């Protein structure tokens, strides 16, 4: 049986967590709201879009803080990764060229599509038809090509 980790036994988060705690709480609340939102009148896949979007935003926030602005320490970043505040796999993709704005991992999972292709949101805008409005099925992304 795994050890039960109560609040009293938990280690405190690394230094600097206080600075971003409020923002993370906000994201958490948004996520809760998205989870509890009604599915009335929505398509089946549409229900999950907000969840994808919020987790993307949260991951991006932490990614920016650590890699772009160097505002949080390595320890804190690792702690956030470990505690599920960010999606490490998504961030790993963001570091690769051509995937800098990737919306979610599902959208590059070619094996899940009929023609072994990526999602429509990965297509650069100039290759789309004029004024073609897209919104991908997996996460509601409207286009995440790097050169958009």
């Amino acid at each position, binding site marked *: 049986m795994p050890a039960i980790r109560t*609040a*009293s*036994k938990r280690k*405190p*988060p690394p230094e600097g*967590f*206080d*600075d*971003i705690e409020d*923002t993370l709480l*906000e994201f958490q609340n948004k996520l809760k709201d998205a989870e509890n939102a009604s599915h009335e009148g929505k398509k089946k896949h549409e229900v999950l879009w907000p969840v994808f979007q919020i987790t993307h*935003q949260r991951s991006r*926030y932490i990614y920016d*803080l650590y890699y*772009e*602005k*160097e*505002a949080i320490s390595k320890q804190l970043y690792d702690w956030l990764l470990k505690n599920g505040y960010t999606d490490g796999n998504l961030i790993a993709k963001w570091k690769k060229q051509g995937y800098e704005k990737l919306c979610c991992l599902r959208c590059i999972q070619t094996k899940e599509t009929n023609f072994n292709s990526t999602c429509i949101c990965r297509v650069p805008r100039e290759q789309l038809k004029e004024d073609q409005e897209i919104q991908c099925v997996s996460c509601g992304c409207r286009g995440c090509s790097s050169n958009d």
Partner: protein
Amino acid sequence: MESPTKRLKPSPPQEASADFVRLGGDDDDEQDTNQYGYTNASPDAQQPDQSISQAPRAPRAMYQHSHHPDRRNARNDPRNAKDRPKSKHVLPNHEPWILVRTKLGRRFVHNTSTKESLWWIPKDVMPGVLEFERWEVQVKEKEANAKWAEEQLKGMRGTGGNAVEVGKRTRDGEGRDRRRRSESLQREDEEAMMAEIAKEAEKGEERDVKETVKNVEGLQPKSAQPEGGDAGYGSDSSYEEVEVTDSEFEDDEERQQARAAAGDGEPAHEQGPVEFGEDDIAYQLAAMENYGLDGNGNDNDGFYSDGEAYEEDAEEDDAAHIFRQMLSDHAISPFTPWETLIADSSPTSIILDDRYTILPTTRARKEVWEVWVKDTVARLKEERAKMEKQDPRIPYLAFLAEKASPKLYWPEFKRKFKKEGVMNERALGEKERERLYRDHINRLKLPESTRRADLIALLKAVPLKDLNKGTSMDTLPQQVLSHLHFISLPPAVRDQVISQHISTLPPAPASGEDAEEDGEHEREKDRKRAKALAERERLVEEERRKAEKEGRWAKRELREEERELERAMEVGKRGLRERLRAE
């Protein structure tokens, strides 16, 4: 957008700078707008206005010859609504002031630091404006000359029809603006006019006639027609005097003339230049900012002239600086995401700040924000590193001193105060809190004398550097504040004990206390080392003595054995029996 080389600058003002500054707006291509763009801009009208339009009331011309009758009333002039700031120019050596030109060709100065805008250019800024316009004129003159030469050639081909009339108009106009224009320029203007008229004549006779008739009818467009000749709102070739004060006697004079010329048919003409109040200025600036807000103002709205591009570059740094200042002023946490910042709809939001629009695009703003965040975080880190870290126990102990009582068990106490910030402090673990609480409660049960003695012992343990005669009750060292013994006594008694103890202490050691202490440390170490050495020597000596002693013992034993052997060897003639007897 047009390239600057295509622009034409008709007749730069030379003498015009003495008492007012004429507005040299950006011209559209002369061929297009002057001749075909707007019907009022007749070739006949153009010449006289070349000679006259220096008058500081050009704005009137805009609505006088407008096709929209509703615009004729200057008082409730929709011009104000129509007018937009078009370009801004930095005034060299008058740094906070910029010259703003409007779509209608009017002009005002704006102070970027105090945010005030004035139609009437202040005395101290005037030289800057003059200098700027002179420079602008010089630049444009070169282009204009080339253009005129070209047109002159064209004119040579077909001068005719209107020559007589042109001559007449010129004579009319001359009287009024002689004092303002140099002869050479005027001549140039005339030539240009003639060329244009000739061209017009080629284009269509009936149109020409119409224009002529109109002029004859007494509308007198010449008296007020802006120099460029196009009266439309989109035009910017009109020169305009925007100092709209009533004290401008020249203006009055011109107005009189215009009134006389206009007759009763159009009373609206006599309204004179529109008076612009503070509201209008505010409106102008707001409009200007709106243009900045739409993101790609430079590209698609066409209100920014080409000449502005490089000035924009020069201003970019300033704008970025102001934007950063705004971010700092709003006390924004650098850890806030950008989306949150711009989605904020509270009255303190940055998007409601005027300075928010100083950068034209959201992308530019975000870039500046990113740099700002980076800098701010770096500074914050530095500050935190410098700041003395407060022991997390201090606030908790202060809380305990106030709230803890032997009547409450720890779980009860925890439950009662679980909402308090100190009870949820992460730096201090739950266990540590519990331990401190229990110890504190137990100590409260001890007799006061013991607690007092403990406190004094604690105070004595503090080095003189931290606690001395100069220490006040507010600046007690952390070592004292974070100790349980400090809160064991009731505050009144405790303060008394501490102040008593402090009064017995010597004053703080001199400034070199650190060095002194280091020296003390060294000496202490030396002493210790010497002591250790002595001890070692003693041990060695002991060892040596011991070894010597053992050696001696061994020798003695050897000697003894030798003696015994000798004795044993000494067997006499008397034999063994004798010997045994002896023993």
